[in-house]
């Protein structure tokens, strides 16, 4: 295992915490690490900061992510990686669409040419708002407590997407599934970062597979062309036992 000492702990939202630590490794936006929480599990996390001072942004779900959140500066984190194929770099205007903790993998892509759509359940859960050096930041909440009330695909229906060189999307699968037809129709260049349960990160265990592709090695970033050909996307995944369940 690789290990590093946490040098900073930042509460982002009521459910989300960012940890910063030094790690020399070259990592590109969209790549991830597998974090070992000794005694409690191992979970995939995107790098929300990809410079020398790396960062992860952890949302509390089950036991491992909660235990991870309990770490303090000075504590060590253990991980392996980096894993996965990164987002394709692009020049010119870019549109980033991040829902929930999905914003974590998009943060390293934010620049002054970016329009960023941040969505979350409510105002408090919006990630990184006010911290991003972007051209424009739009907020969307389920409950309307900030910005547009609704879901990203509803908001995007009224946008002119042709001004963007490329779109980058990360969030819950249903959100992305609903967005896909709209983006297909608009004919834009787009990349999506997908999520599946992951047990190895190295293309061995099959838990992250979608239509025979392993997201840990052939993803998690998938182009819109590839995504539109996947049978399982938005519909099926396997649970921890390998049982086929609806997404």
């Amino acid at each position, binding site marked *: 295992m690789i290990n590093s000492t946490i040098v900073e702990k930042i509460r982002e939202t009521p459910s989300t915490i960012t940890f910063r630590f030094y790690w020399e490794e070259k990592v590109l936006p969209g790549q991830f690490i597998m974090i070992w929480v000794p005694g409690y599990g191992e979970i995939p996390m995107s790098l929300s900061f990809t410079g020398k001072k790396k960062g992860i942004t952890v949302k509390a779900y089950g036991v491992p992510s909660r235990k991870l959140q309990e770490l303090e500066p000075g504590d060590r984190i253990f991980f392996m990686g980096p894993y996965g194929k990164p987002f394709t770099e692009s020049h010119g205007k870019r549109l980033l669409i991040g829902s929930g903790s999905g914003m974590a993998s998009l943060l390293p892509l934010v620049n002054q040419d970016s329009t960023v759509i941040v969505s979350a359940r409510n105002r408090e859960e919006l990630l990184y708002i006010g911290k991003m050096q972007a051209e424009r930041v739009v907020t969307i909440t389920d409950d309307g407590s900030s910005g547009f009330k609704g879901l990203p695909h509803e908001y995007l229906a009224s946008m002119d997407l042709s001004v963007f060189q490329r779109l980058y999307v990360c969030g819950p699968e249903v959100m992305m599934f609903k967005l896909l037809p709209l983006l297909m129709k608009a004919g834009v260049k787009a990349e999506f970062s997908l999520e599946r349960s992951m047990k190895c990160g190295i293309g061995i265990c099959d838990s992250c597979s979608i239509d025979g592709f392993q997201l840990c090695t052939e993803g998690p970033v998938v182009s819109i062309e590839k995504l539109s050909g996947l049978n399982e996307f938005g519909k099926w995944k*396997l649970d921890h*036992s*390998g049982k086929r369940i609806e997404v």
Partner: protein
Amino acid sequence: MLQVTVAGLKLENPLMLASGILDQNGYTMKRILESGAAAVVTKSIGSEPRDGYLPPVIYPIEGGLLNAVGLSNPGIDNIGGEIKIALSAGKPVIGSIFGSTPDEFLKLAISMEEYGVSAVELNLSCPHVQGYGTEVGSDPVLVRNIVKNLKGSLRIPVFSKLSPNVNSVLEIARAASDSDALVLINTVKGMAIDIVAKRPVLSNIYGGLSGSAIKSVGLRYVYEVKREMDIDIIGVGGIENYQDALEYIMAGSKALQIGTALGKFGKSIFYRISTELAEYLSKNNIRSVMDLVGAAQI
């Protein structure tokens, strides 16, 4: 030239996917068949769904992997759909099963047969789950009964996959001699410790070692069993290239399985090795890969 017949099963080349690697999702198995594997073996399936152990369940170390996945599987009632998807590639799928008693094995095997698999592979060898695998597979009487029971009731061939973690593989191989083929070997029990965390990395503490580190051990079992018994053998353990494949074939294997190497080389490994094997055969004027089976027996 590359075609082999093992346990009565015709394969377009000697290479299959080993159980437990990229074989729980039907689409993945299909894609592996499309990438050049002659057959795939499913993840080992039991009677009930099992989540398996808490991750870390797979840990890369020098020369291989340690794994203690804990026989996570959806249960026999939920695997039919995946097998159906895999079968749409038009190649043989082999159903791996694990149980505790002859009756449990039989029920699982019958369901597998109904799902359309070309053979069942009995996991008598998983080193890290209590009550199954090696615990079953190190009891010669139980092994004999399990195999006998199946052979009387199935139309498809039965493979028995044996463990290297026993006193005498030969004794168990003899007990399983009613099988149509023996699969040698499963992983070797091992562990890793993280010296900074000061604890074992795998949540199960112990796991099975696979990959090139165990190649010499697998070869030894194939050679030893071939020397003593007249039975088809499928070699597995650390195969990464055509030279490794030839070693296993010359030791006495009619077919081969590949697992861990998929992590290092991806799914194209099946295509690569079979191409290289074919080149080797033409270059050396060998008509069929079957002519080399056991060639190194002295």
